């Protein structure tokens, strides 16, 4: 549970680390001068996650786009890096307009610089061309 508490002494948040399946319970305190103190992590990546989660939360977006001439109508895609959390809905609207044509290889760029984030959208799998497919 991410629980925020705002006090005169600053800000306090408890959250589950999502960086790896261990799911450590992290605690972040921000004192009146804006200094962060983080506890509960078992590794450096968890500490960085907690800091980012408070200052600038980001997520990797995984979804699908339409594909033509393939054995399936959808191609799974992902952002090549995490994007700001508040852009997820907007990114979904952009990707709903995208259609690609097979063949596609894992890692092919499907859309460059998504919403000016500097992050690309890339294919998550190979998709062979099937001739005659709709």
């Amino acid at each position, binding site marked *: 549970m*991410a629980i925020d508490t705002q006090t005169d002494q600053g800000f306090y948040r408890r959250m589950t680390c*999502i960086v*790896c399946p261990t799911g450590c319970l992290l605690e972040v305190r921000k004192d009146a001068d804006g200094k962060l103190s983080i506890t509960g992590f078992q590794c450096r990546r968890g500490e960085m996650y907690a800091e980012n989660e408070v200052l600038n939360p980001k*997520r990797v977006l*995984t979804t699908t786009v339409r594909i033509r001439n393939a054995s*399936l109508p959808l191609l799974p895609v992902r952002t090549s890096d995490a994007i700001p959390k508040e852009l997820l809905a907007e990114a979904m609207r952009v990707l709903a307009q995208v259609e690609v044509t097979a063949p596609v290889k894992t890692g092919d760029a499907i859309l460059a610089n998504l919403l000016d984030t500097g992050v690309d959208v890339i294919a998550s799998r190979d998709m062979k061309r099937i001739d005659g497919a709709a």
Partner: protein
Amino acid sequence: MRSIRYTDVAVIGGGPAGLAAALAARRAGAEHVTILERNHELGGILQQCIHNGFGLHRFKEELTGPEYAYRFIPQVEADPNIHVYLNTMVLSLTPTKEITAIHPDHGLVKLKAKAVVLAMGCRERTRGALTIPGTRPAGIYTAGTAQRFVNMEGYMPGKRVVILGSGDIGLIMARRFTLEGAKVEAVVEIMPYPAGLARNIAQCLEDFNIPLYLSSTVTMIHGKDRVEGVTVSQVDDNWCPIAGTERYIPCDTLLLSVGLIPENELSQTAGVPLDPRTGGPVVDEKRETLVSGIFACGNVLHVHDLVDYVSEEAEIAGEEAARHALRETADEAGSGRDGGQQLALKPGSNLRYVLPQRITAGAEVDLYMRVSHPMDAVTLTLSGVTLAKKRQVRPSEMLKIRLKAQHWESLFQAGKAPGQELLVAAEPSA
């Protein structure tokens, strides 16, 4: 009927377990490996798991399901001595490792293998297994079926969704439905704690403000032709609905994420004995079942939460299957296992299961286990010998603990000998 074909190692199922087993069998020296897969492509369930989070242990990266599968598929396809049969349904397996399968071009096929790896995976528990009262309208899906519709076929099963069960697939689908524009009204879990990984509660529910009702269940399904809503009630310690706690939630779709069942019909045709605790075969540390030369790995053996451990387990099974095949080649009379040296491993207090169920005395191997309920500060013991201490354990997270030479020394000093039973337990730390 065609004449019989021969192979060294036959792998039944081309998902993550089958792929890793086939590659490991080849590395261990099996000359011919055959994969039998019922789908039109390799990769199994990973192909519909388009979210990321796979491979952190193995590749130190967060891959999507298909990306994880593509770490294996090209290697399998590049090996001319791994023979892949797609669209092929295995109908039966005998204790002498003869497989009967149906292939779209070859018809009925018989395949005789020196060793067999069972890698058929698991399937979802359905409404029928739950007996929820109410009507029988359209709009009730298992979470994995909905996942296939949304991620591979391009259909949205509904617009307003309630999810029963907090297993990982249900949590992942809560986020997926939300991103695709549907409204997920609630996730309802009968236990007082979630069934899925903590990170999925955080990134799939909390990120999207989806409520999770614990100690609650669906007590009625409403709607004649299509689901119109569900009644959700709180339950007591015995899972009995508490009168007066009912709340009606309008929805057009109910997803079930209430557990997975290893798919062992084929194992049973071969007479492979199952462990009622895991729903999968009883195996030793080589992942060999009680039928000589038949091995098992992945979700057919026990349901995993991380594919990384599936690959690891499949490599053990594949390698040992290759060794068995090579021994059979060298000694056509066939070779049984070295009997008598094994001890039985059983779950003791606070453990749901432990795997393998049999173990060779002195073997330094990883033990996989699951606790029966969440606990803080536990000591894991093997017949009184301390194996490890853990800060926090949860049934949703499988534990992997190395059994080392020093543990065996303590066990032998305590008088444990082959033929006896060892008990693994999770005790509160003093």
